[in-house]
């Protein structure tokens, strides 16, 4: 029976307590900054006070002579560049000749304690030649004379793309109505409660161990090997449990390389813990994006063509930015039918902290634009926006204009359930008194279909061993950032082997001990590690159940296994403990161990750039948000959120609801208040007091609904749930504000100032900059039966 249809599950689907819950509620989880090693020294980084400057000279001699200082470090000692994507290796552990944002690391010190290291930073003399700074998308496009990097097509353009899927102008010619809108999504940051920390220790054998609060130990491993010019086999990266990630700990970081080198220079373990201000500089958060959307429609609301343009403010370095750029154009087509689609995008460098992946990576911005635009064109055509979404949802199995392959799709059911529970139809336009309701749908990937660097290896590997006492240990490179990935591994293996989750030990995120998993990003972990774990566990299940069958003299097909016992399905009194069967199996077969791995199915998409967007399967969400808007103050109160999420199958509904509620919270923060703003090159708000995020008092009640589509690609049918549910919240809120007070704020955050300005007729709508997009690549539709011959990594991401 296909596993997604299984009805006999005993662990999967249960609201079990997380395997690490007891450690977390007793404060015993060991985060990176909780590590203490004998003789440990402490590092601090000197960061640039200028947004853009050339470094004429650095003199560390006074710092080196300071009592208690053990070593200093400057960029020339680690000259090899790095970066998460092979295509943009543009960062250095410490600046070589230029600094590109306030906070760019310039030099480092290791000392006997943190205060000595900090004091020594003040003794480092840096001679800067201050350069003009570029602080916005428009400035970056206009100032071709000020180049932040010397790579990229021209000026401060990092990457530019233009694709036409299916002759979009022919679609516009068929349209009865064409609507254009411009939107702006301000940048915001992850704000994990845990500040990044790393500890490095070079052992007497010359081998290096780095513990870090990272979501991607495998990529940190690769960056360390490259920059330190050490064999990867001599480097061990251990990802500590992350105190929140949200994408902000998925790049290799300067401070990780710096402590490694300082440990090598001092012969001692070296720790660095960033201050909260430094966490704002590490950033890699949501790109500010300007967007223009033009849609052609028939009178009945059918889309004939869509043209989408984006301009991304990338900040000072590449980070995941090329992928982020493609993501701003990738998923518009997987929710509602778009027969012809054109996407043009540009990412520019600015003198600000680098942007990268934050929950929803590059897709919340266009989703905000698209779902607001839908409500607007529905108003133009006199259509009901809820009905439009239901009528135009794509069908299961669709291959979209941009060659994204939709498999199962629960969008319609998500919309229907949210509409029913929220009473949207009865409320829209009728609440009065400054109250309103808004709706939106969305979709997200369950893991990126292709790896970040070119390779033909699996994306996730799992190794399992069974000991003679019946204990099971699962090894996997995945990293628990709070989402519960360790627990999911335990549940899957417990399900397959028929043991209790408590009898499973999970060892994760250790490049010496665990098979590679690419990391906790792109909502890939449950689907990919889950499938790899199933494969490994089934090999062992066959051995253990085979031994039990011989002992019980029962055909193996008749055996059942659950909760540490194996028994005859026809006579439950005939059975034996799992541990006894494991002993019999080891006697018969030798040491009990097995591996499993997972590689996503090949994408049907064949155009260069199609590496971003494909996934084993898409998740779907819908949200309704009800708000009250105070016309005097412009303050928006969120009264309630209803959200439905197509999770494929809940491996653990308790954890899924936790991800949904957390996504709603983060979406509301972005919609209402979270923003990174700069003045004269300076981050205006690098503190948790000034960077406004929702507190307990702003959090509304949330009605979460789980929709199960049992996708054949997912483990037991499961899809992602950690990022997708954020997406519909932001546009649903914007649509609710319009319903409440009749003004359209075409940007986020939707602050009281903007609402008041709009109510007074003073609101200035966002403007799209003039962008010279490159020559359009015409992408022909796939032949009817498309051969699956996509390369193993996207050529656009290759160096």
């Amino acid at each position, binding site marked *: 029976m296909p596993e997604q249809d299984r009805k006999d599950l005993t662990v999967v689907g249960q609201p079990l307590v997380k395997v690490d819950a007891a450690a*977390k509620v007793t*404060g015993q989880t060991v985060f990176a900054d909780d590590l203490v090693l004998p003789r440990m020294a402490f590092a601090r980084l000197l960061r640039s006070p200028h947004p853009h400057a050339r470094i004429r000279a650095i003199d560390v001699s006074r710092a080196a002579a300071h009592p208690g200082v053990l070593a200093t470090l400057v960029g020339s000692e680690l000259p090899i560049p790095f970066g998460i994507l092979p295509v943009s290796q543009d960062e250095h552990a410490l600046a070589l000749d230029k600094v590109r944002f306030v906070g760019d690391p310039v030099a480092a010190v290791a000392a006997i304690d943190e205060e000595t290291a900090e004091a020594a930073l003040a003794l480092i003399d840096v001679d800067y030649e201050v350069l003009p700074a570029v602080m916005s998308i428009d400035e970056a496009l206009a100032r071709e004379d000020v180049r932040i990097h010397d790579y990229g097509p021209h000026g401060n353009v990092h990457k530019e793309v233009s694709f036409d899927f299916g002759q979009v102008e022919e679609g516009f010619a068929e349209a009865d109505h064409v609507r254009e809108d411009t939107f702006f999504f301000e940048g915001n940051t992850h704000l994990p*409660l845990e500040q990044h920390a790393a500890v490095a220790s070079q052992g007497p054998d010359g081998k290096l161990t780095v513990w870090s609060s990272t979501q991607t130990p495998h990529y940190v491993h690769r960056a360390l090997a490259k920059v330190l010019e050490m064999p990867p086999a001599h480097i061990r990266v251990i990802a500590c449990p992350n105190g929140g990630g949200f994408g902000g700990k998925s790049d290799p970081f300067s401070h990780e390389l710096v402590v490694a080198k300082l440990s090598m220079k001092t012969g001692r373990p070296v720790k660095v813990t960033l201050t909260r201000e430094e966490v704002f500089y590490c950033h890699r958060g949501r790109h500010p994006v300007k967007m223009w959307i033009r849609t052609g429609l028939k009178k009945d609301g059918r889309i004939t063509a869509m043209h989408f343009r984006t301009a991304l403010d990338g900040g000072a370095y590449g980070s995941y930015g090329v992928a982020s750029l493609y993501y701003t154009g990738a998923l518009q087509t997987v929710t509602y039918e778009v027969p012809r689609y054109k996407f043009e995008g540009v990412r520019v460098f600015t003198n600000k902290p680098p942007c990268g992946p934050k929950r929803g990576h590059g897709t919340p911005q266009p989703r905000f634009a698209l779902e607001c635009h839908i409500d607007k064109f529905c108003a133009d055509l006199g259509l009901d926006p809820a009905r439009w979404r239901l009528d135009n949802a794509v069908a299961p199995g669709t291959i979209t204009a941009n060659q994204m392959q939709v498999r199962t799709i629960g969008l319609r059911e998500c919309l229907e359930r949210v509409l029913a529970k929220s009473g949207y139809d009865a409320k829209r336009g009728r609440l009065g008194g400054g109250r309103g309701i808004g709706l939106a749908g969305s979709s997200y990937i369950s893991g990126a279909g292709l790896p970040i660097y070119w390779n033909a290896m699996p994306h996730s590997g799992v190794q399992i061993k069974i000991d003679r006492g019946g204990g099971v240990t699962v090894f996997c490179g995945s990293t628990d950032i709070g989402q519960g990935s360790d627990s999911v591994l335990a549940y899957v293996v417990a399900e397959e082997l028929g043991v209790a989750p408590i009898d499973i030990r999970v060892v994760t995120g250790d490049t010496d001990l665990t098979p590679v998993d690419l990391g906790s990003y792109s909502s890939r972990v449950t689907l990919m590690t889950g499938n790899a774990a199933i494969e490994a566990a089934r090999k062992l299940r066959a051995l253990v159940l085979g031994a039990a069958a011989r002992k019980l003299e029962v055909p193996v097909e008749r055996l059942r296994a659950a909760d540490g016992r194996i028994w005859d399905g026809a006579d439950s009194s005939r059975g034996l403990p799992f541990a006894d069967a494991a002993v019999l199996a080891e006697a018969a077969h030798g040491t009990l161990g097995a591996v499993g791995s997972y590689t996503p199915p090949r994408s049907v998409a064949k155009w260069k750039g199609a590496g971003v967007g494909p996934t084993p399967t898409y998740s779907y969400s819908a949200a309704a948000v009800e708000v009250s808007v105070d016309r005097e103050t412009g303050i928006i109160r969120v009264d309630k959120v209803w959200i439905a999420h197509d999770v494929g199958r809940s491996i653990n509904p308790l954890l899924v*609801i936790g991800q949904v509620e957390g996504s*709603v*919270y983060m979406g509301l923060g972005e919609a209402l208040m979270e923003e990174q703003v700069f003045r004269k090159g300076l981050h205006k708000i690098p*503190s948790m007091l000034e960077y406004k995020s929702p507190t*307990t*008092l702003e959090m509304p009640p*949330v009605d979460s609904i789980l929709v199960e589509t049992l996708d054949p690609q997912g483990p037991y049918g499961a899809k992602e749930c950690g990022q997708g549910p954020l997406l519909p919240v932001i546009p649903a809120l914007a649509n609710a504000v319009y319903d409440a007070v009749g003004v359209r704020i075409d940007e986020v955050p939707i602050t009281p100032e903007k609402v008041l300005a709009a109510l007074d007729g003073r609101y200035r709508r966002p403007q799209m900059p003039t962008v010279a997009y490159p020559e359009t690549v015409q992408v022909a539709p796939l032949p009817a039966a498309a051969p699956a011959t996509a390369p193993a990594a996207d050529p656009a991401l290759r160096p």
Partner: protein
Amino acid sequence: MDKIRIQLRVNGEDRECLAPVHHTLLEVLREELGLMGTKHGCELGECGTCTVLVDGRPILSCLALPVECEDRAITTVEGMAGVTLHPLQEAFAALGAAQCGYCTPGFLLTAAALLADKPAATRLEIAEATAGNLCRCTGYLKIFEAIELAAERMRSRKRTETGTETETETGTEKARA
């Protein structure tokens, strides 16, 4: 660096250490006394992550000097559990109120102080009491539910212990009934 001798009563134990005169209670708890359960998110009094109890009241240990806390009872998350978990810890674990777990000690201690004052705290009272504690994972809802569940269990245990009937029934209990 000037160091002073500090005597603290932490989780019922008398502890003594030498620490730089300007070190905060947070630093002394973590670095001198090895009580790593107390976390830090900003060290500027903005996030509530480093909350501990001093004489039963929640304070931000990143803004407190240890000398202010001498002769006072300090409780950290390590002092909440004995052989078994505190009802708040049980409820946080059972309901998924700890995702990454980094803000959890601060929330637990803030909630413990609240429930000591108001054993039948309402949802609004819980939200107000914890408004100074930031959490980026949960959206706070599971935390509210866990505090309510723990409060209900603590009241029920107290009733069993004292054999008295309860004075008020909260909405939570009604909902669960």
